[in-house]
């Protein structure tokens, strides 16, 4: 078991200590008897998973819904975030009476392995040294994240998920779940995602990582020990990534060429334009809640993701004889995970004779649309889960 004192080295460096002792979360600890076997060929042990649950698990333990978070998300899917004090990242979709209805389903949302909100990651304390892992932390994959989540379900005594849902990196986890543990996922909802990271996506991630590593405060990943924090690098990484989450049309609609609090250009490199000011704000607020090394590890995990390659180059083999029912959703203006990627998954699922629904939603909000108010998406998620609930024989409300 990991034994952590409140005054961790992170706090000394001014980094939130949520990496070891997450606020407002449940903790599942896995001791030396339950190591996490990583794709990198090493074992992570001991380790812990921070998670949130909402709703009530029924007596048959058959109404669990796993919500998988995206790259910079965390377990606080439907509650006030303890660090940012903002509402949960998917409160539009998860909650009482919402499409993922916590009056019907027992919702579990874990922080991924490699994250920085309480699940073991590079900012956590390495029990062997008593210091933060930093780059000593093993490289992890989407499959490792899912393997850890399966251990969490074992820990909670849940044999089969009623559903697994997630967008972007969360959607990758959902697809991996269906491929790794088909019998444990009754219904899968991968949204705005793909079965592999494209060269363009890897390229964007690499720019973000280089921005972090170019910050002199990064100190070869040892910033926790040296009392520094690569805030600028991480902020620039976030700014770059944020552009990829939006569409040209959405940026133009929101900001156009409008000036920020001024009538005329200042003929300087101030944030003259509203869009510059917005991006700077996105970058600065992000570093308050995220660990730079975690960003390196999680972007790497996404880059390595390639379900077809794991199945001898044939994507359909990843879903051979899958009993899972799938619903894929994509967005017209998402150029990070375009509709063509979802369609490739649909083709593979058809070839594997799996039960699949696929809807593309018209929006100009880009990749971020999956996190936003998209009534059509809500209707589809609700309808899909209603149909699956009837097929699974779940009652209307948990008793």
């Amino acid at each position, binding site marked *: 078991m990991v034994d952590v004192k409140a005054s961790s080295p992170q706090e000394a460096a001014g980094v939130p200590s949520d990496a070891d002792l997450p606020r407002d979360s449940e903790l599942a600890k896995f001791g030396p008897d339950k190591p996490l076997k990583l794709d990198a060929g090493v074992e992570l042990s001991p380790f812990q998973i921070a998670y949130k649950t909402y709703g009530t698990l029924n007596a048959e333990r058959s109404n669990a819904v796993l919500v998988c978070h995206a790259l910079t998300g965390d377990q606080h899917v439907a509650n006030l975030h303890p660090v940012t004090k903002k509402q949960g990242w998917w409160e539009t979709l998860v909650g009482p009476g919402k499409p993922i209805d916590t009056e019907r389903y027992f919702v579990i949302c874990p922080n991924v392995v490699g994250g920085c909100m309480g699940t073991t990651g590079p900012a956590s304390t390495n029990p062997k040294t008593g210091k933060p892992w930093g780059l000593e932390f093993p490289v992890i994959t989407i499959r490792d994240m899912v393997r850890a989540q399966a251990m969490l379900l074992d820990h909670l005594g849940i044999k089969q998920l009623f559903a697994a849902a997630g967008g972007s990196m969360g959607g990758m986890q959902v697809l991996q779940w269906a491929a790794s543990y088909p019998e444990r996922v009754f219904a899968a909802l991968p949204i705005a995602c793909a079965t592999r990271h494209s060269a363009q996506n890897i390229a964007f991630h690499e720019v973000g990582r280089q921005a972090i590593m170019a910050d002199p405060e990064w100190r070869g990943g040892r910033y926790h020990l040296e009392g520094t924090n690569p805030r600028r690098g991480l902020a620039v990484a976030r700014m770059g990534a944020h552009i990829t989450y939006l569409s040209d049309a959405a940026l133009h609609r929101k900001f156009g060429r409008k000036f920020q609090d001024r009538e005329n250009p200042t003929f300087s490199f101030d944030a003259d334009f509203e869009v510059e000011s917005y991006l700077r704000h996105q970058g600065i607020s992000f570093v308050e809640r995220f660990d730079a090394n975690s960003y390196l590890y999680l972007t790497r995990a996404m880059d390595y993701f390639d379900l077809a390659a794991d199945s001898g180059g044939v994507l359909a083999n990843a879903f051979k004889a899958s009993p899972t*029912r799938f*619903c894929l959703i994509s967005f017209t203006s998402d150029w990070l995970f375009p509709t063509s990627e979802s369609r490739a998954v*649909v*083709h593979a699922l*058809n*070839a594997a*004779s799996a*039960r*699949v*629904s*696929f*809807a*593309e*939603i*018209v929006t100009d909000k880009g990749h971020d649309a999956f996190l936003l108010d998209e009534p*059509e998406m809500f*209707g*589809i998620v*609700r*309808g*899909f889960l*209603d*149909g*699956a609930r*009837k097929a699974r024989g779940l009652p209307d409300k948990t008793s």
Partner: protein
Amino acid sequence: MSNLTVANIERTPGGARVDLVLVAEMVERGVKVLDVGCGDGELLRLLSESRGVDGRGIEISREGVNECVAKGLAVIQGDADTDLADYPDDAFDYVILSQTLQATRNPRVVLEHMLRIGRRAIVSFPNFGHWQVRLQLLFAGHMPRTDILPYSWYNTPNIHHCTIKDFRELCTEVGVKMEKAVALNAWGSPLRLNAPWWFWNLFGEQAVFLLSRRRDGGQATPK
């Protein structure tokens, strides 16, 4: 293709479209069905409720797809002309093309794929040989518009109209077996079974064909 390709088809007292009921009656219970051009999912729902089938759908219009998925049906957005090629052989017991054949770009290839993917195929279409159609062209001299073909020539999605006679010839050419055929008159009632084909071709407003592969195990191979 959506149900917009045809309109105003008679309904049963229960509210179901007569042609869909007829199609549903040709399907065995509990089988696996692909509905190509499933529109708003009315047939899939009817099949699942009345025949207990495991139904899937392809629909070209985004509105139709999203409506179907929100109803809990397994439907994907796709095009009969391009996407049937992605399905493996023998994936379904029945592949249904309801009121969609005339809107495909290559009806022959679509038909061949249907009998490759499914053991059996059901095709329903509006009969362009119906007397009303013939009279409009003969006497009024313009492209026919009827209750089930309400479009003008310039905005119709129906680009490959055929008559019952034409479709039978296609079946012979492709080498598929006609197991059953029913023609409905303008009031949605089936025509007399022992009526000759020319009678059907003149008085059938629409037709429903149940087809299978000519030889057991043999497959139509699309060119």
